[in-house]
Each structure stands twice: as structure tokens, then as C-alpha cells.
């Protein structure tokens, strides 16, 4: 299963690099990649321009797609367990809009006063604040049931998104394209120098979540039962929310808001590998990466040479999936 997934991931990355306004054959893609890692192993039969497209533009873009897809899917899967809510998703719960708010605040108003890390840091802050706000609203509205938590999330999400757009128009009244980037996401800004943040966060936070797979399993049964198994339920849930806000914040800081990945991927993964979180977490990361790679390929090719915002693709697929899920739950 993991082997097949790994091969599928490598294949998807290769296709993502090969496809675009200038199409580069797969063998050239691999030759360039190998030559970059170990210079001189393969005789150069390609132009400098192609090498720049493959190595400086498309490869980091493909890697960013993998990191963002994997991160959002892992966050969705773990939030679903701790809220015991199959509809939980960083986008629907408003965590993504909080992250976008934080990132926009830095980029258009305060400036990067701590250097490049300022953006992901503020995105994390915004994501965390929104998460706590959603939890507070659902408490305030006495919304204990699963669907109510989502409603609270959607409500807060709309408010924070509006505020984020206010920030954009205060900064530049003609910046419609900036709004589009943040609200619908995009991987076009991927650069090698930026990949370190999402990579580090995904590896560290992902490993932490994976190590706690057993607790996530227990949380799906219920708070009281999990507590009788010796799990500090309230503290564990809060930690997962904070870790989820960290991953979401950093991903959104570099890619804008890409919706429904965290909702959809874990569900499909459960159909493939079962419900044990020891398998759901790594499989979600793998499948999330593949899913976002192909969403980006579609977004780049459907109106080529224009880039369509990737959120349109994931929104369309995810929205339809959401309807199917509601129908399935209703039965």
C-alpha cells in the first residue's frame, strides 16, 4: 500500500513538473533533477531555460503542493477524531481564514519585521486565535452537537474572511488579484528558500500526531471512555487544536486558503486502509500530497497559459464530496 502510494507520488510529481505552458518530456525532467543533485552525471542536452523552468519554478511548486496537501489532510484527519466530527476541516472550522488574516496583516501592513518567518508566525497566531474563537462561540451558543461546531466555524470563518479582505483593500484599493490569491489559494509563489518552513512544520507536527494515533483512536469513541483509558482528554484536544493551527497557519501563509482537502482526503483514505489512525495519518499525508499535485495540474492546464486559482478545483471537487457525505450521513 505505502509502496504503491510512494510510486504514485513520484509519478505525480514528475507529471506536475513536466506539464505546463512549456511542456518538458519526463526523461528530461528526471535528467535535470539528477544533474542538480549530482552535477555532471548526465550529459546536458537541454537548454538553460528549460532547466530554470524545471528546477527553479516547477519543482519547488510541486513540492509545495505535496507539503500543503499532506499538511491539510493530516490536520483534517486529526481534528475529525478529537471533535468526533467527520465534517471537521481546517477550512470549514475557520482556521484557514484566521491564518490568511494573520499573513495579510504582515504582508500588507506591518511588514516582515522579523524577516521571512514573520509571515508564517502571524499566520499561526491568526489560525490559533480563530480556533479558540470558534471553540468559544460554540460554547457560547451551547452548540455541543457535531454539526453545530461546523456552523460556528463557518460563521466565524465568514467574519474573519471579511476582515481579511478589509485589510487587503485598506492596503491597496485595487488589489483584487491579492484577494483572489488568499481566498482561493495558489502555489505560484513557491520558491526554494520558502520551502523550509512548511517542510519543518509538517515533519515535526506530523510525527507528533502520528505518535499519538492510539489516543486519536480512543477519542473517536467518546470523551468519557477516552478518559477511562487514562487519556487527559481536554488537554489532548487542545494540543491537537494548537498543532493543527500551526500546520494550517504555515501552509496558508505560502499557498493561501485551499479548501476541503482536510475534509475529503481522510474519508477516502479510511475507505482504503480502515479507521486505525496509525494508518490513517501517514496515508492521509501521502494521498493529500497526490491530490493537491493533481488539483494543481488541472488548475494550470485547464485555461493554459493562465493559472486558475487551485481553490476553484478543490472547491468544486470538495463541495460535491461534501454533498455526498451529508447524504451518506443522513442514511
Amino acid at each position, binding site marked *: 500500500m505505502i509502496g504503491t502510494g510512494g510510486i504514485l507520488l513520484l509519478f505525480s510529481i514528475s507529471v506536475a513538473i513536466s506539464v505546463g505552458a512549456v511542456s518538458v518530456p519526463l526523461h528530461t525532467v528526471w535528467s535535470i533533477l539528477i544533474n542538480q543533485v549530482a552535477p555532471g552525471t548526465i550529459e546536458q542536452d537541454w537548454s538553460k531555460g528549460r532547466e530554470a523552468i524545471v528546477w527553479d519554478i516547477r519543482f519547488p511548486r510541486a513540492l509545495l503542493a505535496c507539503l500543503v496537501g499532506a499538511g491539510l489532510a493530516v490536520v483534517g484527519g486529526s481534528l475529525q477524531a478529537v471533535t468526533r466530527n467527520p465534517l471537521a476541516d481546517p477550512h470549514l472550522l475557520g482556521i484557514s481564514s484566521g491564518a490568511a488574516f494573520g499573513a495579510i496583516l504582515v504582508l500588507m501592513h506591518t511588514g516582515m519585521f522579523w524577516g521571512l518567518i514573520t509571515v508564517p508566525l502571524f499566520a499561526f497566531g491568526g489560525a490559533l486565535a480563530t480556533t479558540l474563537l470558534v471553540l468559544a462561540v460554540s460554547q457560547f451558543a451551547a452548540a455541543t452537537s457535531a454539526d453545530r461546531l461546523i456552523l460556528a466555524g463557518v460563521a466565524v470563518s465568514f467574519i474573519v474572511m471579511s476582515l481579511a479582505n478589509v485589510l487587503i483593500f485598506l492596503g491597496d484599493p485595487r488589489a483584487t488579484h491579492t484577494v483572489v490569491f488568499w481566498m482561493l489559494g495558489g502555489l505560484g509563489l513557491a520558491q526554494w528558500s520558502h520551502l523550509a518552513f512548511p517542510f519543518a512544520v509538517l515533519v515535526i507536527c506530523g510525527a507528533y500526531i502520528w505518535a*499519538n494515533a492510539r489516543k486519536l483512536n480512543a477519542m473517536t469513541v467518546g470523551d*468519557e471512555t477516552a478518559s477511562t483509558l*487514562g*487519556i487527559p482528554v481536554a488537554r489532548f484536544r487542545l494540543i491537537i487544536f494548537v498543532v493543527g493551527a500551526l500546520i494550517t497557519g504555515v501552509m496558508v501563509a505560502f499557498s493561501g486558503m485551499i479548501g476541503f482537502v482536510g475534509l475529503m482526503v481522510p474519508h477516502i483514505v*479510511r475507505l482504503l486502509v480502515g479507521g486505525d489512525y496509525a494508518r490513517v495519518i501517514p496515508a492521509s499525508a501521502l494521498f493529500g500530497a497526490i491530490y493537491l499535485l493533481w488539483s494543481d495540474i488541472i488548475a494550470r492546464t485547464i485555461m493554459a497559459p493562465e493559472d486558475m486559482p487551485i481553490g476553484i478545483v478543490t472547491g468544486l471537487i470538495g463541495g460535491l464530496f461534501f454533498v455526498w457525505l451529508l447524504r451518506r450521513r443522513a442514511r
Partner: protein
Amino acid sequence: MRTGHLVAKDVCWRPRKNQPLLLHPVSFEVYPGRVLGVVGPNGAGKSTLLRMIYHYQKPTSGQITVDGLDLWSMSAKVAARKVAAVLQEQPGAFGLSVREIVALGRTPHRSGLSSDGARDAEIIDAALARMQLEHLATRDFDTLSGGERQRVMVARALAQQPQVLVMDEPTNHLDIRHQLEILSLIRSLGLTIVVSLHDLNMASDVCDAILLLKDGHCQGFGSADDVLSEPLVSDTFSVTAQRQVLSESQNQHLTFHLPT
């Protein structure tokens, strides 16, 4: 399996400081391998009492001990090796298999990262066999019937290897056949058990001792014959209760009517 000696001494509970007690001080004792039934009308404090035993709500004052060790001065993890609970909450639509759910019972015996060893696998298999669930081990929990689900939850508690088992309304939402199965199961486990039940006749059949609660007060603790007397039951439930002898079996049976 070792069974525990459960003692509660003057335990009481209130939600916050300066609020009235929801459960007034109550004391009782369950000997190893015996079954205590907790009965009373809705809102009597049954759940509150059970929650203090399965380490979910800390008593405002008083003490609960298992084999002489104070349950609330040990960590949640250590307490989880002593007391397991079968509650009414059940896994949602997360696709866990029966075996994966039973395996959760090993959680308090493992440290965070380590996976189940051969010894754990044996214990899980034994719990599945004990509940006659071997043939369902790989099934998705969501596809099971109510009675099967309840057996899975008991198997999960057994995999925890507790000394005391708490069961909250285990017969709820089950048909008669499965109610009787669960009850005979309770009797056969040989564990120290605290069980809350709605049906007083079932309680007196299954339990060695009865604790009767009303509005957070203990109305009586002792044998079913003593505690489930006509006047006490009539008063507690605001009904007219009559104890009758069934003509065939000569067993005692309570009947209830609205007071006229």
C-alpha cells in the same frame, strides 16, 4: 483476573464552589467479585456517582479506594488499570474494526509510542473470545447490531484488565434477548462490578447489593430484599409499588402503579 475491593467513604460532588451538592455524602462497599446495582429515578445522581468511580469527575470530598489505594491520588493512567467502564457513548462513523476497538483497552498499559506486543495480542484475543466475538474481529464496528456493539464495548473493558468494572445502563436500547444476555454476562465475569440499571426487578436478580438514590441522597444500601421494599421504592419513585410472589417460580416481583 484479579478482582478489587471497592470502598467509597462519604463521597459527594458539586459542580462548583458555593453551589449546592448534586450528590450528598454516600458510603458503600463492594466486595471482590460482587455486583452492586445503582438504581433511582432520573436525575438521582447515578451518573455522577459512577463518574467518580471511573475517574472522570473528582469527588468534592470523600474517598474512593480500590484494594485500599485511593483512586483519586493516583494518575489517570494508573487508575485506568484498576477501573474500566462500559458507557453509553459509542464510536462514531470512523471505520474502526471490532479488534481495533477492543485493542484500545490496552492503552493504559502502553507508553505513548510503543505498539502492541505479543502479550497484548493474547489479551485482546482472549477478550474477544470471552465475548464470543472472534468471528466479528475484522468487521467494521458501525455495521454491528446493538447487542453486538455492547459486547464489543465489554470486551474492550476486559482488555483493560481492570479490577473494577463500571457499567452505565448496559441494557439500554437492547431488546429482551440481548438484555438477558448482557445480564448473564455481568454475572459470569467474576469481576467487581458497579452497574446502574433502570429495571428494579432485573437489578434485584443480578446484583448482590443495591444502592438506592433519590435527588442526590442515598435512600438505602444493602441487599435487594431490604432496599427494594414496598415503602422505600414507593417513596423514591413516587409510585405505588407492590411486592408480589410469582405463582409459577415463587420468585418475588415488584409491580408499579400510579398512586391514586
